[in-house]
């Protein structure tokens, strides 16, 4: 039995039902971190978010129409995390979207869009939280996108085919997000005997069972999305700098 075959149109009858499937595993829940850790992760995230806010403000001041495109990008990021992802093991979860977001919108902008999305998820869906916003921003809007983007840029420099770089970026971004979350939890709740490393082993092994297959799934989904976009929205991808412009392409003009 294929797990997704149950899902018919009736299954997704309301927005709430679609969103209820947003997997909260990627977020650290409200009140989970001690105050010192919550503040420390907020401080660690702040320079990246401030850097993102500055580049976004500069972009909007130079091109006022960018507000709408950036808003659309934020909405796309929010909706992407609501898609139901069939895992290669048969279970279901949801993509983090950090890899695709970083490739499309660059990490500084993703830091801001990710923060906005996480704030909305905390207040509209009760997923994540406000005291854990700094920690969640660090794992999902900073570490994941930067790791994915670095892999993407590195592989592109070596002339690796685009779809291979897209898969690798999404896989690494997803995995990096969960590794950072494991570190955050292990720092907050060290094992009484084996300390930080023991706790990291416990949290890491629990996440690894589910997250490695999900990272593969997210990589595959991102490749599928990018392939379709390369066919249907080449202009937008070129404008975002993902695909090269085609200066050699000749177009008919009226003289």
């Amino acid at each position, binding site marked *: 039995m294929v797990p997704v075959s149950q899902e018919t149109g009736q299954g997704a009858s309301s927005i709430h039902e679609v969103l209820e499937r947003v997997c909260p595993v990627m977020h650290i*829940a409200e009140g989970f971190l001690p105050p010192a850790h919550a503040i420390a992760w907020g401080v660690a995230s702040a320079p990246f978010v401030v850097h993102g806010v500055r580049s976004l403000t500069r972009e909007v001041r130079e091109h006022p129409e960018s507000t709408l495109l950036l808003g659309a990008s934020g*909405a796309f990021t929010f*909706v992407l995390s609501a898609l139901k992802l069939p895992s290669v093991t048969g279970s279901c979860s949801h993509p983090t979207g950090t890899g695709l977001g970083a490739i499309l919108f660059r990490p500084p902008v993703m830091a801001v869009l990710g923060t*906005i999305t996480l704030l909305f998820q*905390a*207040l509209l869906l009760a997923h994540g939280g406000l*005291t854990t916003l700094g920690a969640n921003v660090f794992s999902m809007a900073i570490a994941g996108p930067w790791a994915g983007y670095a892999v993407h840029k590195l592989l592109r420099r070596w002339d690796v085919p685009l779809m291979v770089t897209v898969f690798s970026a999404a896989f690494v971004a997803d995995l990096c997000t969960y590794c950072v979350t494991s570190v955050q939890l292990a720092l907050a709740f060290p094992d*009484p005997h*084996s300390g930080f490393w023991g706790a990291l082993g416990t949290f890491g092994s629990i996440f690894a069972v589910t997250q490695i297959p999900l990272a593969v799934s997210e990589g595959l989904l991102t490749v599928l999305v990018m392939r379709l976009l390369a066919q249907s*929205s080449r202009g937008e991808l070129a404008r975002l700098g993902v695909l090269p412009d085609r200066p050699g392409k000749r177009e008919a003009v009226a003289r």
Partner: protein
Amino acid sequence: MLPIDAAAHGSRWRHRHPVDKAVLGLGLTLLAISLPAWPGAALVLLAALTVLLGPAGVPGRKLWRAARVPLGFCVTGALPLLVRVGGPGGGVGLADGGAVRAGELLLRSSAASLGVLLFAFTTPLSDLLPRLVRAGVPAPVVDVALVTYRMSFLLLDSVRRVRASQAARLGLTTRAAAWRSLGGLGATAFVRAFDRAARLQAGLAGRGYDGTLRVLVPEARVSVRFTAASLALLCALAALTHVLEGPLT
């Protein structure tokens, strides 16, 4: 519209200033993580639940629907605390005092979540976001957040319809078809988001758009009485925790 936001728009406290509700809701959250879990977080949980179901008038069923998913994650997240790695016996086993630590974490997390839910169930984001400019958030960021907020609902609706169409065309019957449909869904969301932004841009340009989105914000004043009562409740909870901490632990 999402259930929490819809409830916030119809809330009894809708017309109160967001600062009033932030002092109470977020104050309870801060107390929940700062005070000892027993009896501090338990008292905060009780107080938050009483305010939510009583004066704030949040229906119990809606509250349960919103709280059950994060609660499920709290339980999953607390489970590793029951286990220890290494130690005297080596290998993996039950951690000493793990159940107490997991219980305290659950209590603290549930109480903190209810504090945020109190704020979220009474304050629509459309009332909160435009006011963030006064709190020092740059106007372009607030504008982007406002567009994101309003466009998210439309895009979610589009995604739901596309998914229903894919299901009706047997696009979810096999694993391969499901993957193809999911890829199509993600790409369609991107295309529709950018298409909507372009059309919105054209529409706004016709109305003299200069890069600033001006929206009307319902007028509200910070209530000194409400804020003072909230602070009094927070102080009472902190004092009661310190009084009860000795006898109850």
